């Protein structure tokens, strides 16, 4: 074997240790041998640079994916510098064609920060809606938000109808008054009406017993023309855990009556949410639309095989009907990625499958709102269970939530959700259980 071949095998990594000694002796003694070594190293370096300079043309790569009907990725090789790629079977010495990449152990348990983005968007949208509720009210109803006053009204026209707001300290009482038909309400509005009528009659008796000038006569005519109203425009709205009664009532130019009303209506809210639903009254307050998502998932089998993009977020929508103040029934549906691990016999060969398909589900939900256990007057603990069905098998879901209702109609909630899905594979049932933090928003109609 000549010197050139020895050098070639040395650079090739196939030269034996004995021959290496022989080569090194040659290199030490022979200038031509050293030049040959330099020459072969240069050639090897040139070939590696040539290899690194190879670039897959963008149209060639795109042609593959378009031919297969797949989305063209923004991956290396498509308009990218090929030198930046990290080929696993490239020029690393000793690399085999076989098994050039990692194993399954890399299945990630790390949390993708992008999963918090929907929650942030949800909170941001809620903040926008909350701060812009005046504008929303204007858009929905075309009028300004009712601005009530705790000041004693004075010198208003005797026939002017002024909208006032009252607040009931008992949510239960207000709720009952809201639920019952108007004519059956034992509410204080009826007694108010009676008091107004009585006061009006007293006023008539007082004024009819004395002499009058023309102005007084005009006022009396106006008062005689006044008919005590029926309190049939009372509605109830929930705000921060309190039921706010909005009513239309006459203000009569009488200090006695005004004082009486001022006493009764002393606690007023400076701002009220829409007094009526934009939908027909048959829906008023009984239906809820719910949208929610989840984060911080853990599952068995775990972990998720795929850390997907933002659209991989589990989501659910629901429409719920409020049977009573505490009991809610509804339909929920959504989609989420379901990690699966099961064994199936294919062509006589048992094969373990690990996958995480995105599956839709739909189910019937019962929810219990524990209003008696309110926290900070506007946070209601609630629990719900859902019997759902998926395309692969039955699913059971359960939630424990805290519902924050800063407005009468809108709520945001945060809680924990668990689900169990069973699916038959060749007569054997396998299960997937998921535990996750869920959050969302609801709106009452």
């Amino acid at each position, binding site marked *: 074997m000549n010197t*050139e071949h020895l050098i*070639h095998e040395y650079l*090739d990594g*196939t030269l034996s240790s004995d021959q290496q000694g022989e080569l090194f002796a040659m290199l030490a003694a022979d200038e031509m041998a050293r030049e040959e070594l330099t*020459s*072969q190293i*240069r*050639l*090897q*370096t*040139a*070939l590696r*640079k*040539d*290899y690194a*300079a*190879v670039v*897959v*043309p963008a149209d*060639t*790569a795109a*042609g*593959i994916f378009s*031919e*297969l009907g*797949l*989305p063209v*990725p923004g*991956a*290396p*090789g498509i308009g990218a510098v*090929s030198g930046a*790629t990290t*080929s*696993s*079977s*490239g*020029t690393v*010495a000793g690399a*085999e*064609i*076989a*098994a*050039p*990449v*990692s194993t*399954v152990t*890399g*299945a*990630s348990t790390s949390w993708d920060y992008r999963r918090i983005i929907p929650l942030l968007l949800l909170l941001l949208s809620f903040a926008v809606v909350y701060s812009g509720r005046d504008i929303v009210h204007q858009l929905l109803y075309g009028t300004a938000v009712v601005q009530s006053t705790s000041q004693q009204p004075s010198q208003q026209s005797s026939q002017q109808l002024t909208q006032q707001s009252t607040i009931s300290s008992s949510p239960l009482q207000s709720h009952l008054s809201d639920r019952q038909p108007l004519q059956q309400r034992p509410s204080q509005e009826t007694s108010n009406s009676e008091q107004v009528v009585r006061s009006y009659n007293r006023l008539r008796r007082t004024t009819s017993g004395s002499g009058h000038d023309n102005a007084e006569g005009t006022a009396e005519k106006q008062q005689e023309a006044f008919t005590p109203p029926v309190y049939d425009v009372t509605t109830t709205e929930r705000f921060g855990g309190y039921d706010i009664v909005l009513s239309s009532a006459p203000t009569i130019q009488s200090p006695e009556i005004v004082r009486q009303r001022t006493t009764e209506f002393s606690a007023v809210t400076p701002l009220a949410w829409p007094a009526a639903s934009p939908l027909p009254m048959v829906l008023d307050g009984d239906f809820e639309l719910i949208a929610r998502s989840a984060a911080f998932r853990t599952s068995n089998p775990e972990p998720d*095989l*795929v850390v997907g993009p933002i659209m991989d977020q589990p989501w659910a929508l629901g429409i719920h009907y409020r049977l009573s103040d505490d009991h809610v029934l509804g339909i929920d549906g959504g989609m989420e990625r379901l990690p699966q691990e099961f064994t199936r016999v*294919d*062509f006589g*060969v048992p094969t373990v*499958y*690990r*996958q*995480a*398909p995105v599956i839709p589900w739909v189910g019937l939900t019962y929810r219990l709102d524990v209003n008696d256990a309110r926290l900070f007057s506007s946070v209601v603990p609630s629990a719900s269970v859902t019997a759902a069905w998926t395309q692969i098998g039955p699913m059971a879901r359960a939630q424990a939530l805290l519902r924050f209702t800063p407005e009468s109609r809108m709520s945001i909630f945060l809680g924990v959700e668990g689900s169990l899905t069973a699916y038959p594979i060749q007569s054997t049932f396998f299960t997937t259980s998921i535990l996750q933090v869920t959050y969302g928003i609801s709106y009452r109609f």
Partner: protein
Amino acid sequence: MTTLSDTDLFEHLRMATPDAGVAFTELYRRHHHWAYAYCLKVLGREEEAKDVFQETFIRVYRTAPQSDNPVTNVAGLIMRVCRNLCLNVQRDRKTTVEIEDVHLVVDTHHHYEKDELLDLIDAALDCLDAEDREVFVLRMYHDISYDEIARQTGLTVAAVKNRVWRAKSRIKVLLAPVLSEFDRL
């Protein structure tokens, strides 16, 4: 997907799961560079290399569901498909081009730019016969072991070593006037 092994990714293709497209994209990302380099250096013609490269990955994707068992050496599978397609192209080409007709002329007085130097390597590779060229590319470009090359080509290890040495000697002679130029790259 980036954390899965080639075998697991190929399983998505084989079982035609909803994630098959994503799995294929990841397999492409891992293997496209060496596969295209192989096509380009073995065939020596860019248009033919593009066609073979595209056909290789399209075949891998479309024939995956026909596999009865999981594939443990996906890179080897891609290489087999790629090599067979290259052999088909070379077989068809032999009817029109004689390899002996290709020569390399190096101008020792010319100051070569980077692209020109790399083109010289391709021209030098063109001067090799197809069999020597293939084993030379597999060994010198892809750093594949002699045993694996022997398995892929059906030659003995000794024959592979001999061909690589022969090809390297030829290339070295052809590029000798400009080898020092490569230090600038």
